[in-house]
């Protein structure tokens, strides 16, 4: 029986309660969104006592499901003002799953704003809160080292930590989760979750799952059979089995630049002359030359192994091999072509606890103001450091692209619901524009990610440059992605399912064999729909309407080279994406 651990930061009380029966089919994003919907007044101050901060493994967390260890972090976002689920890899989710914890919910707010706390959950389930004021202002790497010194040598534990950005309440702050080697370099990056964690005085969470086994399966044999099929599909497939482990997500840089969809110099162009120098192929060659590691998983149980470590010229660990989004945000979007400069910016964000997507996009907006030049990596690093070390421009950068654009009089501000757009220009890839505009999360590249033949109704005839069919596809992708986020699966498992039908079958077989509940395709899509219903209704009640489900005007007026095209999906189409909500809400008994 899974349970919820509640920690009230106002009085530091800890209670344990059974997961309510109405939520027994929920995990991950479904659970965080259901909790936020139920417990947070939509007009609450995100940094006030009425917001919650929820950490939840997926429904399959801790079960040995391949790639099933993703963590969902939920709250009302201080950046977007919407409900938010921020998703991370790392070791914490599987640990929580093994402990039988469906979610840790932090409520309230300490009376003393200078207090810093750490929650420790031991393998026997004992949970305690301790004072760690001496860590105030410490970077994620320093806190991680301090925790290491406090744990027994033979312990197995994971950490969730907050950097100084979150402590300072910055809207671009994220939360760090430890990876397989214990580095705090996996991020619940988007939406300012670090600021929520900081508002609750929480500096760290340590979770020990030493000696713990997977939770019981309803049908162990069926589960073992299904994970074998799933694992094989992941290994066989060209994307998950070869492309990603070899090049990581950064293989997209050359491809998107060729397609004319790589936002360059603050979304002013779609191809970057530095694509070859910063792409995954070059990144891999450099890492190999310097003796670094080019393939590992972000959590144990990952079969895909798409991550790598970037090392400096002397072969020392610098940061996790910057992912596509970071290589874009601090690369093409800023006009920077040097991977070492990008890695330094990535490391600095990681230590401070800042979302690299938001910060790169922010830096590009700052460059567009003329304050520093596009392409100047050293100036970008100095500007980033000024957020904490003084100098220009200072803290304003840490509040994200929109705040920075307004402060410096930049008219081209690429945000939706106040969150910066990620690494695909919607004019060259119209479908992702629909997702950016309509997702409950604000501009989000992972919200509509999961392409499976079961949900592909458009028969593969979609033209990325045309509006036809994009809204329907985005709807189905968003539902399927919300489903994966709720199961705790890495969205990269979606790649094999496009070509290997057994892989999708394996997903529902694993869910059924573990839970003993029915999980056919309809039930899986229902899970995704219910998740989105909670989110949409929360946002509606928080005051968001159709006008917020739009891209910034300049995407409709400024033609993007090289295709010289604008965003063309109609407002009516955008408004149709969530048309399933009223009916499903009624079935769920919420309006």
């Amino acid at each position, binding site marked *: 029986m899974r349970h919820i651990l509640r920690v009230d930061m106002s009085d530091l009380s800890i209670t344990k309660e059974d997961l309510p029966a109405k939520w027994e089919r929920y995990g991950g994003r479904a659970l965080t969104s259901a909790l936020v919907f139920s417990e947070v007044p939509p007009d609450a101050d995100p940094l006030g006592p009425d917001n919650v901060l929820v950490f939840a493994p997926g429904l399959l967390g801790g079960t040995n499901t391949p790639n099933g260890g993703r963590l969902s972090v939920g709250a009302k976002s201080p950046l977007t003002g919407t409900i938010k689920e921020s998703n991370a890899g790392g070791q914490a989710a599987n640990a929580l799953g093994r402990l039988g914890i469906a979610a840790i919910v932090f409520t309230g707010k300490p009376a003393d704003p200078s207090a810093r706390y750490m929650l420790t959950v031991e393998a026997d389930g004992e949970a305690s809160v301790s004072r760690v004021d001496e860590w105030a202002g410490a970077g994620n790497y320093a806190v991680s080292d301090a925790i290491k010194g406090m744990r027994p040598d033979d312990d197995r534990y994971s950490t969730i930590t907050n950097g100084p950005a979150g402590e300072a309440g910055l809207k671009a702050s994220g939360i760090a989760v430890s990876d397989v080697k214990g580095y705090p370099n996996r991020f619940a990056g988007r939406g300012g979750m670090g600021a929520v964690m900081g508002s609750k005085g929480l500096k760290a969470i340590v979770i020990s799952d030493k000696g713990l086994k997977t939770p019981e399966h309803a049908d162990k044999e069926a589960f073992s059979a299904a994970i074998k099929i799933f694992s094989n599909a992941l290994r066989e497939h060209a994307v998950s089995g070869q492309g*990603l482990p*070899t090049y990581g997500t950064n293989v997209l840089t050359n491809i998107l630049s060729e397609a004319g969809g790589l936002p360059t110099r603050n979304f002013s162009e779609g191809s970057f002359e530095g694509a070859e120098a910063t792409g995954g192929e070059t990144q891999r060659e450099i890492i190999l030359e310097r003796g670094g590691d080019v393939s590992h998983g972000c959590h144990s149980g990952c079969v895909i192994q798409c991550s790598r470590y970037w090392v400096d010229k002397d072969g020392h660990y610098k940061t996790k091999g910057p992912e596509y989004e970071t290589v874009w945000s601090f690369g093409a979007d800023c006009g920077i072509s040097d991977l070492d400069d990008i890695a330094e910016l990535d490391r600095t964000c990681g230590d401070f606890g800042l979302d690299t997507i938001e910060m790169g996009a922010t830096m590009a907006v700052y460059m567009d103001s003329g304050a520093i030049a596009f392409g100047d990596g050293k100036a970008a690093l100095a500007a980033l450091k000024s957020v904490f070390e003084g100098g220009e421009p200072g803290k304003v950068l840490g509040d994200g692209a929109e705040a920075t654009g307004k402060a410096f009089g930049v008219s081209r501000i690429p945000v939706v619901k106040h969150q910066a757009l990620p690494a695909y220009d919607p004019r060259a*890839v119209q479908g992702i524009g629909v997702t950016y505009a309509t997702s409950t999360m604000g501009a989000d590249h992972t919200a509509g990610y999961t*392409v499976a033949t079961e949900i592909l109704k458009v028969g*593969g005839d979609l033209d990325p440059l045309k509006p036809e069919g994009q809204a329907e596809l985005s709807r189905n992708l968003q539902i399927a992605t919300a489903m994966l986020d709720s199961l705790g699966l890495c969205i990269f498992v979606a790649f094999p399912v*496009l070509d290997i039908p057994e892989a999708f079958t394996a997903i529902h077989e694993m869910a059924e064999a573990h839970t003993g509940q029915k999980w056919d395709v309809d039930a899986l899509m229902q899970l995704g729909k219910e998740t989105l219903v909670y989110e949409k209704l929360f946002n509606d009640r928080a005051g968001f309407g159709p006008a917020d489900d739009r891209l910034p005007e300049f995407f409709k007026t400024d033609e993007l080279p090289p295709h010289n095209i604008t965003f063309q999906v109609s407002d009516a189409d955008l408004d149709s994406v969530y048309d399933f909500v009223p009916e499903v809400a009624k079935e769920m008994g919420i309006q």
Partner: protein
Amino acid sequence: MFGFLHSARTEAGLPTTVEIEVPEEGTTARQIALDLGLDLDMIEGVFVNRTVYDVEHPVVGGDRIAFVPPGTPGPHRFYLGLYRAGQTQSETSPRADRPGQDGLDESSDQPED
């Protein structure tokens, strides 16, 4: 040449971006791949002037083409048409043996990678 095609070229000491000449009447991306010694099984789709097609797509002087191997992550494989291109290829064009070097007229240049 991207992804695995890129690595195969650099490992063989060959450039990943080349300019080649094509016959006046044009050719196909497939023929160019064969002429360059690229493994057709390692090509899912081809960008021709920034739009994705399958390898049978015609190519004329002045065109810019880019070969994309299987392995594109994200929904972008689908959005950009690489999935569709790959499906068409496996249905219509079984892999051919490499031809000889005769029959190619020299004509206008084109950049490609």
